[in-house]
C-alpha cells in the first residue's frame, strides 16, 4: 500500500527515522482513539445485556461481573419479538432476491445497448433514491389500504424493493461496463443465444458485483423503520419496529432492551465483518470498484 503522508523533509538520517517513528506512533494513537469511539458503545450494550437486571444500570458500573443470559431468556419468551425477527429475515431476503431479478437484467441492457436518452433514464432511476421515503409513504398508505396490502408481507417486500432498485441498477451497470464485450461475442460465435451468453458468461463474471449489491440491499432493507411504522400493524411487523416499541410503550426494562438491541445488531455486524471487502464497490455506485 502506498504511504501517502510521511513527510520526508531533507534532514539528517537519524532524525528522519525518529521523525517517521513519531509519525507512526501519532497515527496509531489517532486510529486507536477512533477505534475506541466505535467499539465502546458495542461493548457497553452487550455487557449491559449480560448483567442481571439489578446491576444493569448501576453507576459507577461494575466493570467486572458474572455474565448471565437472564435477559435473553426473557427476550425469547416474548413471542412478538421472535416473530418479528423471523418476519424481517424472510421479508428482507425475499425482497433482495426479487430486486436482483428485476434490476440485474435491466442494468445489463443499460450497459450493452444504446437506449434513447440513456442519461435521462439513469438519472430517473437514481431519482427514486432522492425521494424521501416519508413523501412516498403517504400515497402507498392510501393505496395499500384500498388494495388490502396494508400489514401484509407482500406489501412490505414491495416497499423494500423500492428502496434498493436504483442501487442495484447503478452498481450493476458499472460492473457490466467493466466486462469486455468480446466475452459474450465469443459465446455467440459458438452458437449460444443472447440469453445463454448472458446467463452462462456474463452473470458469472459479474458475481462479485451481484454479491456486493445483495449485501448492501439487505442492510438498507433491514434497518428500515418508517415503512413498518406506517404500513404494518401485526402480521408484517419488523424487528426494527419491535425495538421501537420497546423504547416507546412499555415500562423500560433496561436489561431486556439491551438484549433486544444486541440481538438486532450482532447478526448484521458479523455479516458486515465477513463481507467487508465487497462493501466499497456496492456503496459507491460502482465509481470505486477495483483496489
Amino acid at each position: 500500500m502506498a504511504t501517502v503522508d510521511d513527510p520526508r523533509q531533507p534532514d539528517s538520517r537519524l532524525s528522519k527515522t525518529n521523525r517517521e517513528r513519531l509519525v507512526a506512533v501519532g497515527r496509531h494513537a489517532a486510529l486507536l482513539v477512533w477505534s475506541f469511539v466505535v467499539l465502546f458503545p458495542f461493548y457497553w450494550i452487550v455487557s449491559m445485556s449480560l448483567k442481571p437486571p439489578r446491576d444493569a444500570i448501576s453507576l459507577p458500573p461494575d466493570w467486572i461481573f458474572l455474565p448471565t443470559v437472564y435477559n435473553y431468556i426473557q427476550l425469547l419468551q416474548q413471542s412478538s419479538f421472535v416473530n418479528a425477527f423471523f418476519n424481517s429475515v424472510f421479508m428482507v431476503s425475499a425482497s433482495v432476491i426479487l430486486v436482483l431479478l428485476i434490476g440485474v437484467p435491466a442494468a445489463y441492457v443499460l450497459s450493452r445497448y444504446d437506449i434513447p436518452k440513456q442519461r435521462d433514464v439513469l438519472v430517473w432511476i437514481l431519482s427514486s433514491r432522492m425521494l424521501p421515503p416519508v413523501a412516498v409513504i403517504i400515497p402507498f398508505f392510501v393505496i395499500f389500504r384500498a388494495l388490502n396490502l396494508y400489514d401484509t408481507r407482500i406489501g412490505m417486500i414491495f416497499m423494500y424493493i423500492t428502496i434498493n432498485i436504483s442501487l442495484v441498477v447503478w452498481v450493476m451497470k458499472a460492473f457490466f461496463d467493466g466486462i469486455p464485450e468480446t466475452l459474450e461475442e465469443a459465446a455467440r460465435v459458438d452458437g449460444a443465444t443472447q440469453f445463454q451468453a448472458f446467463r452462462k458468461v456474463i452473470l458469472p463474471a459479474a458475481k462479485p458485483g451481484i454479491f456486493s449489491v445483495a449485501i448492501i440491499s439487505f442492510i438498507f432493507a433491514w434497518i428500515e423503520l418508517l415503512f413498518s411504522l406506517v404500513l404494518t400493524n401485526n402480521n408484517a411487523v419488523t424487528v426494527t419496529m419491535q425495538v421501537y416499541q420497546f423504547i416507546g410503550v412499555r415500562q423500560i426494562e433496561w436489561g431486556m432492551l439491551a438484549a433486544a438491541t444486541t440481538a438486532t445488531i450482532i447478526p448484521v455486524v458479523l455479516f458486515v465483518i465477513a463481507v467487508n471487502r465487497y462493501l466499497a464497490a456496492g456503496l459507491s455506485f460502482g465509481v470505486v470498484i477495483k483496489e
Partner: protein
Amino acid sequence: MSTPTQTASQAPSGLARLRELWNDYLPYWFMTPMVLVMLLITIFPGAYDLYLSLVKYQLTDPNTVGQFNGLANYERVFTSGGAINSFVITITFVAGALALETGIGFVLAALVTGVKSDRMQTFYRIIFIIPMAVAPVSLATIGRIMLNTEIGIIPYMIQQFTPFVAPNFLSDVPLLTVILVDTWNWTPFMFIIFYAGMSSVPKTLLEASRVDGAPLWRRYVHVIIPYMKPVLFVAILIRLIDLFRTFGLVFSLTSGGPGTATELVSINIFQTGFTFVDLGGAAAIAIVYLVGIIALCNILIIKVGFEGVWD
C-alpha cells in the same frame, strides 16, 4: 416475470415461436419489469402526492375527504411556521452531519492508507465500518441508554474524568447530539469509499511529487484530492441525498423534540400525516420538499457530475 423460459429441448412450433420472441426482444423483456417498478415508485407517488396536496384529506373529518381545496394546503405550509422551521432544522442537520462525516472520513482514510502493515490496515478498516451495520432504531436505543442523565455512562464519565459539567444531551443540545450520533453511524460510509479511492491513487504519481519535495499538504491538494475527485463527488452526493431522507434515527432518538428542536422535515411530514391524520397537508409539505431536493440533486448531477465524473 411472466416470460417464457427456454428449457424445452424439442419444442413444438408454438413454444419455438415464443422462444424466438424471447430472444429477439431480449432487451425489452429485460427492461420491462424495472420500468414498471420505477413508474410505480416515482411517477405514482409524485402524482398522487400532488393530487392529495390539492384536496382535503383529513381522516378525522371523513365527509370532506377528497374535496378540492385549491392551494389552501400550501398556504398552511408557508404560513404555519412549523414547516418552515423544520426546513431550517433539516438544513442545519444535513450541513453539520455532512461536514463532520466528510472531514472525519477523509482524515481516517488518509491515516489508514498510511499504515505500513497490510494486516493492520485490514484491522482498522473492519473496525471502522462496523457502525454502518447498526439500524437507526437500535442506535437510538443505545444512544438513549448511554446518554441518559441518570443511568448514562457518557455523562458519568464526563463528570468523573473531565472538569466539564455534562449537559443533558437530549434536552440541552438535542440537534448537536443528533448530528453527533449520525456522525458515529455514517462516517464509516465516507471512510470506506475514500479509503478505496485513496488506495487507487497511482504510486508513481505520489513518488513523483515526493521527489519534487512537495510538502504533505501540497501532495493532498495537488495530487491526491484531484485524482479522487470523482470518488469524493459521488460519496458526498449520495450521503447528501441520504441525509435528506433521515427519519428513523431522529424519530426514535428524540421524536423531533424537545419541542420542535430536532423536527426534521421528514418528521414534520410524518406527524402531519399520521399523528394529525392530515394527509393533504402532509402531501403539500412533501411536494415542496421533493421539488427542493430534486432541483438540488439535478443541479449537482448535471452541472458537476456529468462534466467531471461520468462522461
